[in-house]
């Protein structure tokens, strides 16, 4: 079911300031990002010729991290799940802002290595997170999470072009979004929330994901914000 597209409630809204204060330095094929709140995240460069490369941080991740910085109550004390986690930037920002525990999941074996290194860089305890190598399609959660954060591979990619593990989203871009939505109610507490970065083919003003949301989610309201 779709509500009419809304353009705000008519009130004058102020742009949310950027609290990230993000800087970065490149060393060989790695990037080290530093944030104003002390968080440090290591990724790999975009041009590393490796299908398993760890995606550098960009605007999609930055927007979710900035939202958490402004509204830390959404993560404070929460049990968080970051799927397609890569470096773990979203989950580690949640931990930095007081999340109780974060489970990171990624099918890429290199992601676990980066998550462990990023945890060490930020002095997080092993008891605060779990770095899990696995596929969202077969992942068996031991409990339901309060918050799910996800930046799935979303680049629409023709069959015949290999692409990267972190970006190839299949012919319509939603191959992994579908998997996440199919598993979301199993993983998310009824009172829980999720934030998902998307890149969408749009038909008549409506992204293709709309039909998937209605099909796979139970009794939820989803706000889609174009960026």
């Amino acid at each position: 079911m779709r509500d009419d597209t809304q353009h705000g409630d008519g009130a004058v809204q102020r742009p949310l300031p950027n609290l990230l204060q993000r800087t970065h330095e490149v060393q060989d094929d790695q990037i080290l990002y530093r944030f104003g709140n002390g968080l440090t995240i290591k990724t790999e460069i975009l041009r590393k010729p490796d299908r398993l490369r760890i995606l550098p941080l960009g605007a999609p991740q930055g927007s979710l991290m900035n939202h958490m910085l402004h509204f830390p109550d959404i993560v404070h004390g929460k049990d968080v799940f970051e799927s397609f986690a890569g470096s773990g930037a979203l989950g580690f920002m949640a931990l930095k802002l007081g999340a109780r525990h974060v489970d990171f999941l990624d099918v890429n074996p290199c992601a676990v290595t980066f998550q462990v290194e990023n945890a060490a860089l930020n002095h997080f305890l092993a008891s605060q997170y779990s770095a899990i190598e696995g596929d969202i399609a077969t992942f068996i959660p031991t409990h339901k999470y309060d918050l799910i954060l996800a930046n799935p591979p979303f680049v629409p990619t023709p069959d015949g072009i290999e692409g990267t593990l972190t970006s190839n989203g299949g012919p319509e871009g939603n191959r992994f979004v579908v998997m996440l939505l199919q598993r979301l109610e199993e993983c998310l507490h009824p009172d829980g929330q999720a934030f998902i970065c998307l890149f969408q083919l749009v038909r008549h003003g409506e992204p293709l994901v709309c039909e998937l949301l209605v099909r796979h989610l139970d009794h939820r309201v989803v706000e889609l914000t174009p960026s």
Partner: protein
Amino acid sequence: MYCRSYAEIFPEAQAAIARWEGDLFGKYGDALMLNHYVAHVGPQTDGPTRYVIRENFTEKYGGNLLVPLRNDKQLSYGRIFENILDFSGREAAWPS
């Protein structure tokens, strides 16, 4: 634009790209656009699942955190480049 950009960056895969473009157009029509979104899934309610598309990015996620691409061609190239394994020779196609 997006399919054309793929063909410019991967000229050796023209046939596969043309098949893909034809499949998309056959299924969804030829007026497809592309855009980034953030989906915020809320807690369960008593009602059915519903969605709203709201133009509130700057107020909710940040005034200067929009994907920094100036036009459809740059948007297409920006995302496709994220998906490239071998950059050799492909950067010549980058739009100025």
